[in-house]
């Protein structure tokens, strides 16, 4: 490649510094090349070829020229950064209710949890991609109902929701808060809590 000549360098700098795309005529006027319009076109063609292989391209849109990031590098302009965050206790409960009872309305979730569910909690679950709106229930008020997504099954390694363990299994596996079965045997009062 030869060194760029003066006009090429000037056109390059002008397009670079411009706040908006420029027509060749505007560039010519700016550089005082009014009578050498062809020179601007040649310079633009030269620059376009030069930048073709680079990380920045010189492109024409509707007769106006500007620099932009090469299309294959566009992903660099907007990078996503992931913050790993643990789901809150409330959100975990809501997710569990949706999984065990889907499709379920917000009012039903609240009835099961026994506490009000902040709107944001469901938003977080939808943002995580685990819960989706599954339509409306055809009852008065037509409440929105929620269900889990395939992403949910993936994340928790489930083939289907049927694989979620029942309460008896949970208890048998010792996954529920221990109920004082052991204590019952040797108390005279002999009361037993019954949870199912």
């Amino acid at each position, binding site marked *: 490649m030869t060194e760029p000549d003066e006009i090429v360098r000037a056109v390059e700098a002008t397009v*670079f510094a411009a706040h908006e795309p420029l027509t060749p005529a505007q560039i010519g006027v700016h550089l005082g090349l009014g009578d050498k319009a062809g020179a601007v076109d040649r310079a633009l063609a030269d620059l376009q070829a030069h930048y073709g292989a680079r990380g920045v391209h010189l492109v024409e849109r509707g007769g106006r020229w500007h620099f932009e990031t090469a299309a294959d590098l566009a992903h660099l302009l907007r990078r996503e950064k992931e913050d790993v965050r643990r789901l809150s206790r409330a959100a975990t409960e809501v997710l569990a209710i949706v999984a065990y009872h889907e499709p379920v309305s917000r009012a039903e979730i609240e009835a099961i949890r026994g506490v009000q569910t902040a709107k944001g909690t469901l938003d977080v679950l939808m943002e995580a991609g685990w819960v989706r709106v599954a339509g409306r229930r055809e009852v008065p008020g037509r409440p929105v109902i929620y269900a889990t997504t395939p992403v949910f099954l993936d994340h928790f390694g489930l083939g289907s929701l049927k694989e979620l363990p029942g309460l008896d299994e*949970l208890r048998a596996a010792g*996954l529920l808060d221990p109920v004082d079965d052991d204590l019952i045997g040797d108390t005279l009062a002999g009361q037993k809590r019954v949870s199912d």
Partner: protein
Amino acid sequence: MATLFDGAGWDGEDRTEASDDKLYLDIDGWEGPLDLLLDLARRQKVDLRGISILELVDAYLTYIEEAKSLRLELAADYLVMAAWLAYLKSALLLPRDEAEDPSPEELALRLQLRLQRLGAMREAAARLMARDRLGRDVFVRGAPEGLRVDRKSAWQCSWLDLVRAYGDIKVRSQPAVHRVRERMVMTLDSAIARVSAMLGIAIDWMELREFLPPAHDAWANPQLRRSALASSFVAALELARTGKLELAQDETFGPLRLRAAPR
């Protein structure tokens, strides 16, 4: 160093063309005595290092006199400087007093150095302002796309957290039902009947435990035996209350003994 003091002024300002006779008119443009001194020094068109402080002092004093005669309001600083320069001038001209510290020559040098410093900074400012400046001579990209970092939360929750949470909700939300299991017990009535009957045939003190049924078959059950013990104790208290037996215990938690009340 001489280069520091030729060339144009700073940022378009240039007073070198001002003629001496209208010097006083510019008094408001000066910022202070050093400024005026420096300007007077520049008029001598020599390197500050070679400048004659005496000549400079004379120029300053003459200037201040003229300005005063024109009834210009002169700032106190100009007059203080004038007084000091008059002092310096006389010290430089009079026979040297060896004891004086700092010496007049040293003071003159220091004044010279200060003027050089100010001149240097003024020159530096002019050179700085004359550089290729961003936004005037050179330009950054007019329309950068900009870099953006979108923060996204990757939510974490384990299978265990999930099912445990559900279990907790269920445990928490189910109404608690309490049920007493049916168990074999010795009722108070049967205990009273049994203790009364046994007291009838007893001759001497008997310990409470001896009133319990023999520990075999159903009575071998420890729960039932405890029930029998408790009921027999209450039966003994009841019979004592109605005057049918006497109770004795030698020490705390010692054996509890019973016998029929003397008739």
